[in-house]
């Protein structure tokens, strides 16, 4: 196992591997997305309360889960990069941030669009939306800190510390926002009470969640390859390696 771990650390090898994996992530992701969207929009019955508006769940929940998953992945990659001084791990952390931020924005906007028919207002200080907003601030803070260093190595290590401090605080933020919200008007009906959803409503959600994860993986491959090149001194090996994306 260690050989693989160290082999992955050598930039040309990692660069080539990521190029090979990418199609295997991209096309299944797109296929699953089509199936999931079809399942969610056509096959799933309308919700008895929210009627067809509930179909927004099929894009809101995957992007919300991705936004958190990507932050945790970013913090883990940062920790690995900091502890074992692996440039590849820092490259992964650097690539995760913008993608995670975009998923958070997506979750926020779809959440508030969904709020209009359900709560009658575009913005509601609902615990999930509020912690999603704070998560967006954490992403923006991470990217701002990373951008403020000229030297990539220093930017990597400084932002890694922030990512680790941030990930320790994410559960605290989530719990405190839940606690803060529950005091004001009692535990609000959870937007996605999973138990209430019939079977035929759930499978598209899981399919789309997997589709989003694979799609994120495919884009991450490209971004990490770019970040590897930014960190590499001698990139002579780039010339002869085939340059197909």
């Amino acid at each position, binding site marked *: 196992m260690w050989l693989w771990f160290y082999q992955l650390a050598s930039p040309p090898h990692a660069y080539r591997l990521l190029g090979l994996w990418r199609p295997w992530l991209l096309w299944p992701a797109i296929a699953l997305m089509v199936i999931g969207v079809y399942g969610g929009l056509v096959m799933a019955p309308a919700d008895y309360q929210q009627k067809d508006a509930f179909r927004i769940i099929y894009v809101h929940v995957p992007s919300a889960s991705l936004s958190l998953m990507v932050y945790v992945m970013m913090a883990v990659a940062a920790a690995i990069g900091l502890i074992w001084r692996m440039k590849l791990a820092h490259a992964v952390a650097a690539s995760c941030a913008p993608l995670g931020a975009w998923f958070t924005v997506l979750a926020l906007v779809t959440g508030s669009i969904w709020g209009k028919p359900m709560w009658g207002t575009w913005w509601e200080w609902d615990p999930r939306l509020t912690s999603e907003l704070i998560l967006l601030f954490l992403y923006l803070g991470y990217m701002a800190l990373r951008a403020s260093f*000229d*030297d990539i190595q220093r930017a990597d290590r400084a932002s890694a510390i922030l990512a680790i401090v941030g990930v320790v605080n994410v559960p605290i933020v989530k719990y405190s926002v839940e606690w803060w919200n529950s005091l004001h008007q009692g535990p609000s009906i959870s937007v996605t009470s999973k138990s209430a959803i019939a079977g035929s409503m759930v499978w598209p959600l899981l399919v789309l969640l997997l589709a989003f994860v694979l799609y994120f993986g495919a884009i991450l491959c490209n971004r990490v390859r770019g970040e590897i090149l930014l960190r590499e*001194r001698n990139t002579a090996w780039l010339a002869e390696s085939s340059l197909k994306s």
Partner: protein
Amino acid sequence: MPNASASGAKLEVRGLHLWRGERHLLRNVSFAVEPGELLQVAGPNGVGKTSLLRCAAGLLPVESGEIFWRHQPIAAQRDTYHSELAYLAHVNALKVDLTARENLLFGVGIRRSVTSEEIDQALARVEIPHCRDLPVRSLSAGQKRRVAIARILLTRPALWILDEPITNLDVGGIALFERCMATHLEEGGMILTAAHQSLLAGRSGVRTLELH
């Protein structure tokens, strides 16, 4: 008496490479400093003298190449290495609102307990006993440099890493500092320095490393 002559105290740098942005600043730099030796790093401005010293002191992480102290990589023994080292930078690292005595009391105190008499002796040795209770703000640049040198004398480290040590020193100050360096070398201490004028020229154990 610096315990430099104890078991094989030696600073060794092998194959040091450093980049600043796109520029390949240090290319495959290697050297060693043994007890009783002074190595002066020379070269035009911007060639990377300060960066080399900061890498040797363990301040600046190295991208490739190794640095050994007592035959062990410094990354593995950072705190013990630092406790045997004194680094004099361009800035004197003094608090201008504190007096010279207070600066030495706190500056040296965090590394080893020091008494008021020792501080007085050190200030006398660098020939500024009258500045003892003056706030550093009111001292001249040369006097501030002497307080910084007094701090090095008080911590008694085995290895001195000095970046442009004699800036702002007058002729008397330079002579005084060269005497301090000479006694440090005689006691088995080591010095790695970057300076434009050659220091302790002609003395045995003094070598120069040319960077280009």
